[in-house]
């Protein structure tokens, strides 16, 4: 095989999460009241617009969660050796931006470096000036004045491509809606744009159109220029933004995933059995929640660093070490954030266990665990779903802050936090190096804003009080 598949622990959890979502989706299609709630989400235009944006981030994150190691070129009779570098599918797709590194900073769309250097002239002698970039705008050759026209031409081509793709997509959706509702195409087209469909196709199409008009020109330019500039070691900022997405998604989703079983079990058990079990569990979460979150995280991360540093033999590659550190961070964030969910679930269980149908089940002699599994757990799922989506944005933001205090992800892991941390001192330079920070903040804002909007819609659809 030309490559060896590498399965990192976080990949396992990510794909487990995807499987869980699919399974959950299957359950939803067979449960009428859940389906009704998700239909409300589907009807919401803001919800679907946000979901479309999240989907793009999700695809980037998933592509970045398939890892492998390339086989090194060698003679046929030698045993195969694989590269120490762990790559992901995203790395391969984005190899133009990944591999074409400059020497140091360069502004977006620049053809020359940011800093003056001494350049050797071809005919002997030296001069001070801005050296030409190795890759950025290299196809222009010596004719740098052509740059604006070239950028405009390439962007326009990308835009035309976006329009064409969007038209194809809109046609497909119209056909699908027409078939489903048993009407002609022009009627289906009218219904979509009048918002008369059960699913907000108009919001989805609009957002998808906007995103494509933004992304496709960028992509068509990214092969020739550094569209977001390069950072201190000359790495393309666009590549860093793409890589940060996975880190953000993992922190936001896996954290909730790992704390979920503990919180659900403890919350239900405390609320259902009461007595000393309740006292004990309440004691545990009061202790944990009385320590300020950042400090508990700091203490735990410090200790984790000691463990990792004193056991270098546990990790085969640097990627594995960074990955385990990321997961450990998720666990630590999970420890500090499960208490609020646990408290909510306990309160709700206390209410549920007094209801008639539970008492009827008890009177019939149904065992406690069966009652919990069949009657209580399904009625708590809306709280779990709401927590999952509501916590996401906060966790993504927290990662950036934690990475700034050096208690976030591994310094070698590309994340929004490490990007901001590396770039923030450069604002003091003259002229200002703003592109790294701007790209990180903009991408983060897009992700978090979409997540916040989506979370609101999900909460409104699931919260029985909010009708």
């Amino acid at each position, binding site marked *: 095989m030309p490559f060896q598949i590498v399965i990192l622990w976080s990949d396992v959890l990510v794909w487990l999460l995807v499987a869980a979502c699919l399974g959950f989706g299957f359950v939803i299609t067979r449960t009428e009241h859940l389906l009704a709630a998700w239909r409300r989400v589907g009807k919401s235009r803001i919800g679907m617009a946000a979901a479309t944006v999240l989907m793009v981030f999700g695809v980037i994150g998933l592509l970045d969660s398939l890892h492998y190691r390339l086989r090194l070129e060698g003679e046929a009779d030698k045993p195969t050796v694989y590269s120490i570098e762990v790559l992901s599918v995203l790395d391969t797709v984005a190899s133009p931006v990944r591999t074409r590194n400059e020497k140091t900073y360069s502004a977006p769309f620049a053809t020359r470096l940011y800093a003056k250097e001494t350049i050797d002239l071809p005919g002997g002698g030296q001069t001070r000036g801005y050296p030409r970039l190795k890759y950025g705008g290299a196809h222009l050759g010596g004719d740098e004045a052509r740059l604006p026209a070239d950028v405009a031409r390439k962007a326009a081509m990308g835009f035309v491509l976006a329009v064409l793709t969007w038209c194809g997509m809109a046609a497909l959706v119209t056909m699908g809606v027409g078939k489903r509702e048993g009407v002609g195409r022009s009627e289906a087209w009218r219904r979509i744009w009048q918002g008369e469909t059960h699913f907000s196709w108009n919001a989805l199409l609009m957002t998808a159109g906007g995103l494509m008009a933004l992304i496709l020109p960028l992509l068509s330019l990214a092969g020739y220029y550094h569209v977001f500039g390069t950072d201190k070691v000359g790495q393309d900022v666009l590549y860093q933004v793409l890589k940060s997405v996975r880190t953000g998604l993992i922190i936001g989703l896996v954290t909730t995933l790992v704390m979920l079983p503990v919180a659900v079990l403890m919350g239900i058990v405390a609320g259902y059995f009461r007595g000393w079990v309740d006292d004990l569990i309440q*004691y545990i979460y009061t*202790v944990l929640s009385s*320590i300020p979150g950042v400090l*508990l995280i700091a203490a735990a991360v410090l*200790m984790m660093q*000691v463990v990792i540093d004193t056991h270098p033999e546990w990790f085969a590659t640097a990627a594995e070490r960074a990955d385990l550190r990321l997961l450990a961070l998720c666990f630590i964030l999970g420890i500090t954030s499960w208490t609020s969910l646990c408290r909510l679930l306990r309160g709700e269980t206390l209410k549920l266990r007094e209801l008639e149908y539970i008492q009827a089940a008890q009177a019939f002699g149904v065992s406690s665990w069966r009652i919990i599994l069949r009657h209580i757990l399904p009625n708590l799922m809306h709280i779990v779903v709401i927590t999952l989506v509501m916590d996401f944005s906060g966790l993504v933001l927290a990662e950036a802050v934690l990475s700034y*205090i050096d208690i976030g992800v591994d310094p070698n892991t590309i994340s929004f936090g490490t990007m901001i941390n590396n770039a923030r001192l450069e604002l003091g330079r003259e002229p*200002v190096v703003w592109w790294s920070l701007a790209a990180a903040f903009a991408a983060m804002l897009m992700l*978090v*804003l979409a997540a916040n909007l989506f979370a609101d819609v999900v909460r409104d659809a699931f919260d029985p009080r909010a009708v």
Partner: protein
Amino acid sequence: MLAYIVRRLLYAIPILIGVNLLTFALFFVVNTPDDMARMQLGVKRVTPEAIQKWKAERGYDKPLLWNSQAPGAGALTDTIFFDKSARMFVGDFGRAEDGRDIALEIKGRMLPSLAVQLPNFILGLFVTIIFALTLAFFRATAFDFWGVVLCVVMMSISSLFYIIGGQYLVSKVWRLVPISGFGEGLDAWRFLVLPVVVGVISGIGSSTRLYRTIFLEEVGKDYIRTARAKGLPETVVFLRHLLRNALIPILTGVVVVIPSLFMGALITESFFGIPGLGSYTIDAIKAQDFAVVRSMVFIGAVLYIIGLILTDISYSIADPRIRLK
């Protein structure tokens, strides 16, 4: 009331013991003092003697919980747990890596922290409540809609952006106030303006939305309709009736943080170079000064518990129907 407070204080003791045990386990059992020594000394200089010396200097060379060699009560007291953890209850936090007394350091750093946090807290509360009241007043109008949109956008922006952006714009481009630092006495205000303003702005989004929801829940209630039926102007209904009744849910989130104001804000202080407890903690985290982090965890928990008790007391002040027994 007094009996209630005393009982709540007694309840706090087992929780503090729990916090203490947890930090002890985290700092001394998950990693032995040997591991910490290796980490602090670096990989190259690690010899068994160096580790022993490092541990002896910090008093980490004793047994963890039970000293079988010490006579009498010394079996319990001559241990790491007693020296490092149990003594925190009487305010003895030991020494930091640089040899300074942690308790003394904390005392000196509380004031700068408070100087940033208190104005930030009061001003922030004032601004967000006013903003939320205005949104609730104009509920279901375009103003309300765009106000909420603004809030959602503002809470989606990283707090780091507000700080970095504020420093860049106000201090570097406009040159209005120093970029960071701290001064003695009244001169300090120049250094405090920016962190306070940035802190208030970064908190507007989420708090305003929360308060607006609380206000809107109250707006639908009967007593508001009664007040309107009496012919009271809408402003009076809002300021006198609604605000007072919405106070309870607002107090829940607000009073609990008051004692923690002493702790300072980690990121803000470190960005603005304010010599408070927040930057102390961050420096300790970066230097891996375990003793300081351990002390801050304990103090944080103490302040939080005081905050919880204050919350209960504030309930009974805001709403006379609530009696503490």
